[in-house]
């Protein structure tokens, strides 16, 4: 066996570390501002979710299941799931996790949809962004925790930062695909009547791409939920933390309860966001 020559080394790790420390030294104020904004948003959602009491949440979600997904049985199922979460004693934890997810999704869409639009309208942007998105999605999710930790320390903000980066690719991708697959003639028609590119975007491309964008939002949300759980490793309080503690203390039952709670949340969020995309598809047919 011949070893790879020791002389040939590319010290990428060292470069990245250097870049990071440079950023930390010089961009301190910038990250503070970002962190502050993220924190305020997540605290806002937390306040809202914890302010509304459980006996309002449960029928509300039940109603959403019935009206949005379309069957009363789904609504009933949602209500039972929420009831079980409460019965496990994880109501507050679930609400904390949920607010982290929703806040992350909020930022992901804020970043992702404009990038998706840019990508759809500019071939060069697409050719640059596509490999980056591929990389972001194949990168192990733990890796994002490292820079997040370095920029923002421990707590909710770095967890959310990592979550946003992890969850943003699907919505970018599907916004792009959605706009690119809009009926060519509908776009041409709009242009033929002298529409400006802004009018084409808001009158035709975005409305017709909506089902696709909704699928993107659904996937982004699910990925955010998965990442928020991992984010508990760097100190975001929530269901993930419970699982982590259960593993450390080898408390199987506790871990199972927390795990089930995450699954219930995932199912409810998935069904509700998925129903949005289905509903739009029906409208457009």
């Amino acid at each position: 066996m011949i070893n790879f020559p020791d002389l040939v080394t590319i010290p990428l790790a060292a470069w990245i570390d250097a870049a990071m420390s440079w950023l930390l030294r010089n961009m301190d104020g910038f990250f503070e501002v970002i962190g502050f904004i993220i924190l305020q948003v997540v605290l806002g959602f937390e306040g809202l979710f914890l302010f509304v009491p459980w006996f309002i949440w449960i029928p509300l979600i039940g109603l959403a299941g019935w009206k949005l997904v379309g069957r009363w049985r789904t609504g009933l199922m949602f209500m039972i799931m929420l009831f079980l979460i409460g019965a496990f004693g994880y109501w507050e934890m679930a609400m904390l996790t949920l607010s982290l997810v929703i806040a992350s999704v909020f930022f992901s869409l804020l970043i992702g949809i404009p990038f998706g639009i840019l990508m759809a309208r500019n071939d060069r942007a697409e050719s640059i962004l596509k490999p980056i998105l591929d990389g972001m999605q194949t990168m192990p999710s733990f890796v994002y925790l490292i820079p997040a930790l370095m920029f923002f320390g421990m707590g909710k903000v770095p967890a959310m930062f990592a979550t946003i980066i992890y969850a943003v690719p699907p919505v970018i991708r599907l916004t792009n695909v959605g706009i690119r697959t809009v009926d060519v003639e509908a776009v041409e028609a709009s242009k033929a009547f002298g529409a400006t590119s802004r009018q084409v975007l808001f009158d035709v491309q975005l409305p017709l791409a909506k089902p696709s964008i909704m699928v993107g939002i659904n996937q982004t949300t699910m990925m955010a939920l998965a990442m928020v759980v991992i984010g508990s490793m760097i100190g975001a309080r929530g269901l993930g933390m419970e699982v982590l503690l259960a593993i450390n203390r080898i408390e199987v039952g506790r871990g199972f309860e927390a795990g089930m709670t995450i699954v219930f949340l995932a199912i409810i969020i998935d069904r509700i966001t998925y129903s949005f995309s289905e509903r739009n598809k029906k409208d457009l047919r």
Partner: protein
Amino acid sequence: MTEVMEKDGLETARPDTEAVSQIVIENVWKVFGRDPKRVLGKNYRNLSKDEVQEKTGCIIGMRNINLEIKKGEFYILMGLSGSGKSTLIRNLIRLVNPTSGTIKVNGKNLTTMSHEQLLDFRRNNFGMVFQHYGLLPHLTVLDNAAYGLKVKGIPKGERYAKAMTTLETVGLKGWEDYYPGSLSGGMQQRVGLARALANDPEILLMDEPFSGLDPLIRRQMQDELVELQDKLQKTIVFVTHDLHEALKLGDRIAILRNGEVVQIGTPEEIVTQPADDYVQEFVRDASPAKVLTAGSIMEPAKELLYAWEGPKTALTLLNSKKRRAAFVVNKAHELLGVTGIKDLEKLLASEVKHRTIPASAIRKVTSVLPDTILEDLFPIVSQNQYPIPVVDEKNRLQGVVTTDQIFESISPPEEDEAAAEAETETETKAKAKAKSDEGGLV
């Protein structure tokens, strides 16, 4: 025999020949691919489409197109898929930008316009109808029809009022609150048409608008479009691959192949004088009955009676020519009707003396205009024993069409005969030319 001469005469009589050119396309090329301009250089310019594609990887969409479309004209761009017809119509509003050449509309050069000017020009001059309708599925029929006006920035109330009027014009009253998805194809295309008309554009661009419809609906839509055009008198540029559609609708037809214009002409010219084998192949199935007009096959009336000459002269004339009846005209050469030997004899037998042939002795006949197509003559022939008189708008007799002439002109020539005919045709042309020269001398 005098077919050629008469056709020329007819053409100059066409009202639109004096009309101004509204769209002028000069030397337009469209090359798709990398660095398309180099294809226009002298190295590649004259190579065939396939050769250019092999050597440069570029695809020629349009090659040196020159067209002139007149105001109020129904202009057809016809060709198979890949012939460049859709590219050409998109060029007219620069949905596709030409690689070189100029496109002028109402004297304004579109190719040098800035983006803002172009948008403005599109808003005010064009309406476009698409093959797959291009409707916005999330908007109601009314909002779709009003879309062009919305783009223009016209306030809601006004644009809805206008859109309602055009929806009514296309026969969609009562459907304005539906979504396009719940309408049939034909109705969706009506929405597309209403949307194009709502702006009241001078020019209507139609890209295979009826191709997606089933044959019955298609024919109905064609008929309605003809009717509409009679009323609106827009300039229409209409893309189709369907010859029958082209012949039925077009004032003039441009036939494209591989991005080049092969022939431009009236439906009749295309069918009767195809420029090459390609066009010949195209028009092989075309029924002459649908394109040939009464004016093109009519002959001068052999015997004419002049009302002012009196019944006696008329009778003598008929007897000497051994004819039983003839058409009667007055001094202005206006057709009065037909009268026969029996009518005249009865008239002469009566007490009253007539200096002219009185109306009572003249029977009314159905007459047609010179631009009536032969197909429309069939019902008249079947219930009429006389030749059909052809008159102009002022009822002046131009000529007559006999049943024999009709059948002769629509019966497909046999292969051998066709060749022979081609020969005689050149002879005829020569003769006709000689004749017209003579005419010039007199």
